């Protein structure tokens, strides 16, 4: 970590006193073992560092990123970024820098995961594949570890590190597929056999297929689906920039969701991934986004906070000047209902394991179209009675969790693999009163 701090200090020195600067150094390794047709076919790893610099010369702002850490290259990098800033118009919304602020001493880091050799990932893959030996397996196992050092010319410093392990895959019969997913700080904590077995159970369940007509159905959504809903709410709704631009559904103080719904963004949760400060160096606040169904807060970076007359919540990301601040350590409070109990309560409905290719039709209403994938089942009289061909839906994600539509919340919260990636939303299954399916995937 010292080396990363030293690089950040070196860059600040190169910037000198004539500019306000933020420097972030990311250094680490990432490895990913991919399998398909039940064998490992692509196995990759990388090591490296990046230096990101944002600077303001009299409120004229530019930014840059480089992977070249040689002294001469860093000197040129700083000079180029400074030159780019000098020719910019004055940014009336430049929010300035974070002043020295205490950062919580908390790391989501496992040394063994950081050092995991390719054999360790291959063993997880083998356990996943062996969990359903008669099926065709595909997926990946990833380990990563990153050290982050932040420094700005106002004197603020922050450092941290995190690790991440992911196992994601499907099992396939000739006619159907089922998915399993696990994410955590530690590779050891991922139960590859159970993940592969769940995928196998879902795949085998696809043997008998219903021809289901489009329409409104009661649904039980597994954590992958709920993770996508939660992340879409965060990206398009609880994003203060989107709200300031009039493009968000979020109305703070309004009961826009069912009273059963509590959604927080909390990097201090022991299960969370990532470092505890954002790309501007601001410590990430625990943020209650939905409190008993009431929209309670928006995620801010320093720029949106200045415009809104508030303070940053610590949700700046490298692209948030353009895309807006984003909450991406989401926890949807789990309930007390087992998934089996949810299914048992459904007279006629559909169970969905994962969503696929979700896209927003309109950000303000958050109407989204997408498909089901890797496990879609008919529920009749409280029992799963067969598989359903993948379905297309066109559904407002806000209305999906709206007042009265959330019938029960599962006791099975875990990180789900969302449309925007894994490790962003820790969520349970949910049972919803209505979901709008608009077509079948096969026509």
């Amino acid at each position, binding site marked *: 970590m010292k080396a990363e701090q030293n690089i950040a200090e070196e860059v600040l020195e190169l910037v000198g006193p004539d500019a306000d600067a933020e420097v972030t150094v990311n250094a680490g390794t990432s490895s990913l073992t991919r399998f398909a047709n039940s064998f490992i076919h692509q196995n990759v790893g990388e090591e490296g560092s990046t230096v990101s610099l944002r600077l303001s010369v009299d409120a004229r702002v530019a930014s840059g990123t480089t992977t070249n850490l040689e002294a001469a290259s860093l000197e040129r990098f700083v000079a180029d970024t400074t030159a*780019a800033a000098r020719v910019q118009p004055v940014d009336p919304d430049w929010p300035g820098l974070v002043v020295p602020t205490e950062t919580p001493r908390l790391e989501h880091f496992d040394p063994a995961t950081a050092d995991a050799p390719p054999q360790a990932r291959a063993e997880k893959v083998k356990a996943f594949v062996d969990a359903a030996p008669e099926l065709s397996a595909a997926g990946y196992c990833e380990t990563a570890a990153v050290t982050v050092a932040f420094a700005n010319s106002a004197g603020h410093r922050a450092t941290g590190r995190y690790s991440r392990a992911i196992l994601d895959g499907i099992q396939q019969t000739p006619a159907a597929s089922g998915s399993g997913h696990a994410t955590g700080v530690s590779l050891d904590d991922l139960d590859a056999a159970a993940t592969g077995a769940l995928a196998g159970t879902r795949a085998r369940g696809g043997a008998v297929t219903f021809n289901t007509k489009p329409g409104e159905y009661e649904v039980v959504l597994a954590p992958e689906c709920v993770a996508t809903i939660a992340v879409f709410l965060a990206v398009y709704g609880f994003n203060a920039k989107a709200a300031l631009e009039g493009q968000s559904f979020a109305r703070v103080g309004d009961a826009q969701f069912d009273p059963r719904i509590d959604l927080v963004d909390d990097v201090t949760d022991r299960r969370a991934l990532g470092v505890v400060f954002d790309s501007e160096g601001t410590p990430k606040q625990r943020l209650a986004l939905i409190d008993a169904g009431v929209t309670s807060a928006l995620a801010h970076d320093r720029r949106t906070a200045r415009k809104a007359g508030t303070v940053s919540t610590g949700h700046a990301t490298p*692209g948030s000047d353009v895309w807006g601040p984003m909450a991406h350590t989401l926890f949807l409070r789990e309930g007390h209902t087992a998934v089996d109990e949810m299914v048992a309560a459904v007279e006629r409905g559909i169970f969905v394991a994962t969503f*696929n290719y979700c896209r927003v039709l309109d950000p303000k209403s958050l109407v989204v179209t997408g498909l089901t994938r890797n496990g879609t089942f008919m529920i009749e009289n409280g029992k799963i009675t067969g598989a359903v061909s993948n379905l297309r839906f066109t559904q407002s994600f806000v209305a999906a969790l709206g007042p009265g539509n959330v019938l029960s919340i599962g006791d099975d919260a875990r990180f789900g693999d969302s449309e925007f990636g894994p490790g962003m939303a820790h969520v349970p299954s949910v049972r919803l009163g209505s979901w709008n399916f608009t077509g079948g995937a096969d*026509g």
Partner: protein
Amino acid sequence: MFEYAAAAVEGALAAGAVYADARVVLTRTESIDVLNQAVESVDHIESAGVGVRALIGSSWGFYATGDLTERAARDAGAMASAIARASALVPGAPLELADVPITQTTWETPYLEDPFSVPLAEKVDLLIGVTATMQAVPGIALARGDLGFFDINKWFVSSQGHRIHQHLVESGGGFDATAVGESETQRRSYPQSFGQYETGGYEVIRRWDFPSNAQRIAEEAAALLSAPEMEEGEKSLILEGSQLALQIHESVGHAIELDRILGWEAAFAGTSHLELAKLNTHRYGSEVMNITADATLPGSLGSFGFDDEGTPAQSVDIVRDGRWVGVLSGRDSAALAGVAPGGMVRGDGFNRLPMVRMTNVGLLPGDSSLDEIIAETGDGVYMATNRSWSIDDRRLNFQFGCEIGWEVKNGKLGRMVRNPTYTGITPQFWGGLDMLAGADEMVYWGTPNCGKGQPMQIGHTGHPAGPGRFANVRVGVRG
């Protein structure tokens, strides 16, 4: 830079690889974003490093490092072999590589004006001016503009003797206007959603003439807010060229990727509804449908000299008179499938494993024109510029939303409609292609944001297309 790539290959071979190749890649990008006459972001990114691929048994091992020294490159090669060897715990049949010409050469994108030499202030001023024009239109709340430029140098070395240097230059950008209503927003973009990107220099930006189109685009966005919503129904659908390009990308381009067909992408990107056994017999669409994957088209975003396996750029027939005849392939997938390697394997930067990628997958011109298509349509809708896109993992069921639509009645363009959408099933939809514009209206549309692979890679692809008409399409689907 060849010495680092060579050291990486030597390191991999010494550690047991039966084949190895390596790329040193230096990438520079510049991106500029302006919102409502204010600069949101001016960002420069440069990356440099070497990525080396080692083949042992059934698996590729790949390792990348940003440390550009001979020692680090050699160690990266050894690491790639060690990673490949670890795959043997879950083995498959050994991979083989189809033969390709062994080449030592250089290649450069043809361009007129180095985009990185154009003063930054000129680029920013262009976007400020365009957003000012759009903001002046009543009802426009958000006026955005962006530009992006890429300068990529690659040095490729293989254990079979390849030694190729390429210099690629790409330029693009666009702008959009958004009107914000009580319960929804309406947006119009130019030249297309996410901007238009091409291989070439700053002349690309000048040619698309942003200033002359800003007023019209903003007026359309404002008018959409009060336009009637499109009615649901089944009718003739006329697609503007950039939307047809995306239709090709999603329902043809991805479906013909051989790695998907072979199941290598099953868990993430998905598979394909196409079966290799039906190559040369499967009917993909109507006889008006002729598609090639041509990496040699000047100016198109998917053009290059050699792919990242050192295979020369080439044109491959994909659909001929509506019949499926070709795939997108690399050396390993081609050998497995028994087809000729198409030179379509590319990696995103130095630190990603090259994989099958679209080049320029597009339509050959038809014999009509947009005016003729409209004149010959009794009851239809004309849709332009993509707003949303979604398709299933086998590339069969799609639903697209466009920014704007116009009713077409009795051969004439009618009233504007908002929230136009359409949905369909790939072979039925393409089977309904009955009119297609000619060469005069074809554009090499660029897609700069194609996601695929794990870890995620962003690909740059091209799609020649002009306006076309499809019969009996379900339109107006909404939640």
